[in-house]
């Protein structure tokens, strides 16, 4: 039931068997037939050899000789068959290899086409134009940066700080009393571990 069902669907689909496959199959079938023939002859030869031995034992030398002649002929046939089988097999391999070569060429062709279309999509002029535009854009960006940074140069920053100091000095500040206790020693490790926090503390001190 399932198989019939599957087959039904299969027939609707496109077959993946090529003409070459059919040719190979035909060659292989021919080879199978030869192999079967070979088997038959080999068995026959074995039988006749035994028969010839028997005949010799019985003293029928003439008959044995005749049989051996026949056997010799079949031996030759066997050799020929062997040759034909190898011919067929070589042919099969040639076809199979040619198919592989064709696939390789197809692959190369696809790659080539792809490369070509990619090259078409980016012409030299386009690249030049894009590079120019990019250069322009970089230039433009630099100008903007300068303008933005130029609004507050280092000098300006210094001036701001100086002004701040001037204001703080001018005011009478209500400072807390200086602590009497000795300052606890800094734990060096802590300092190393939390340099940021320490710096922060220092900064805070400055701000006050």
């Amino acid at each position, binding site marked *: 039931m399932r198989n019939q069902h*599957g087959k039904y669907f299969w027939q609707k689909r496109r077959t993946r*068997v090529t003409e070459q496959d*059919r040719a190979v199959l*035909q060659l292989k079938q021919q080879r199978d037939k030869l192999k079967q023939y070979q088997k038959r002859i080999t068995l026959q030869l074995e039988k006749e050899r035994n028969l010839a031995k028997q005949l010799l034992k019985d003293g029928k030398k003439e008959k044995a000789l005749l049989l051996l002649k026949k056997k010799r002929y079949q031996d030759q046939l066997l050799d020929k068959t062997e040759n034909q089988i190898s011919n067929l097999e070589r042919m099969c391999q040639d076809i199979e290899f040619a198919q592989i070569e064709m696939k390789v060429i197809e692959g190369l062709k696809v790659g080539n086409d792809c490369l070509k279309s990619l090259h078409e999509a980016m012409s030299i002029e386009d690249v030049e134009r894009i590079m120019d535009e990019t250069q322009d854009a970089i230039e433009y960006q630099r100008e903007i940066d300068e303008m933005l940074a130029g609004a507050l140069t280092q000098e300006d920053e210094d001036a701001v700080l100086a002004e701040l100091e001037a204001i703080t000095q001018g005011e009478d500040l209500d400072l807390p009393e200086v602590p009497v206790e000795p300052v606890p020693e800094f734990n060096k490790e802590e300092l190393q571990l939390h340099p940021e926090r320490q710096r922060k503390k220092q900064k805070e001190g400055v701000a006050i």
Partner: protein
Amino acid sequence: MSFEWPWQYNFPPFFTLQPNVETRQKQLAAWSSLTLSFCRHHKLYTLDVMEAQVSPVFNNKSIDRKLSTDAILVVFEELRKKGNLEWLDKNKTRCLVMWRRPEEWGKLIYQWVSKNGMVNTVFTHYELANGDDTEGEEFHGLEEWMLIRSLQALQTDGRAEIISMDDGKGVKFF
């Protein structure tokens, strides 16, 4: 490697169908597995009911017991229900035994094909079942009908395509 008989084989009541439903079920299950493993061991793909009667499976000479034809038919019917057996004729004299399902055979064949890097190649059926290359593989000597079924199973999965030509058949694996 000789075939190992189950213990029931030397148990005389095993050769008479048991009236008790539960016992009978167990008995039939044992017979089914015995038949299948016997066929597997001897690589039998078709059975003849007449021949089966004299075959050692249903005929244990050492304890002088044999399963009757009717009982054999009951066992075969049991196997048919499980999908391991198919009748070849209406009169139920010959049947196909599938101790391995076509899908499993297909899997074995496909494994061999891909292991040998022969995917995308064409094979004749003779080459697969009787060729020198498959000598020693389990599917070597597989009967034509079974081979075709397993290839059909592979075809359903899209891993093979059967090619029919004027004389003989072939298959291409993907």
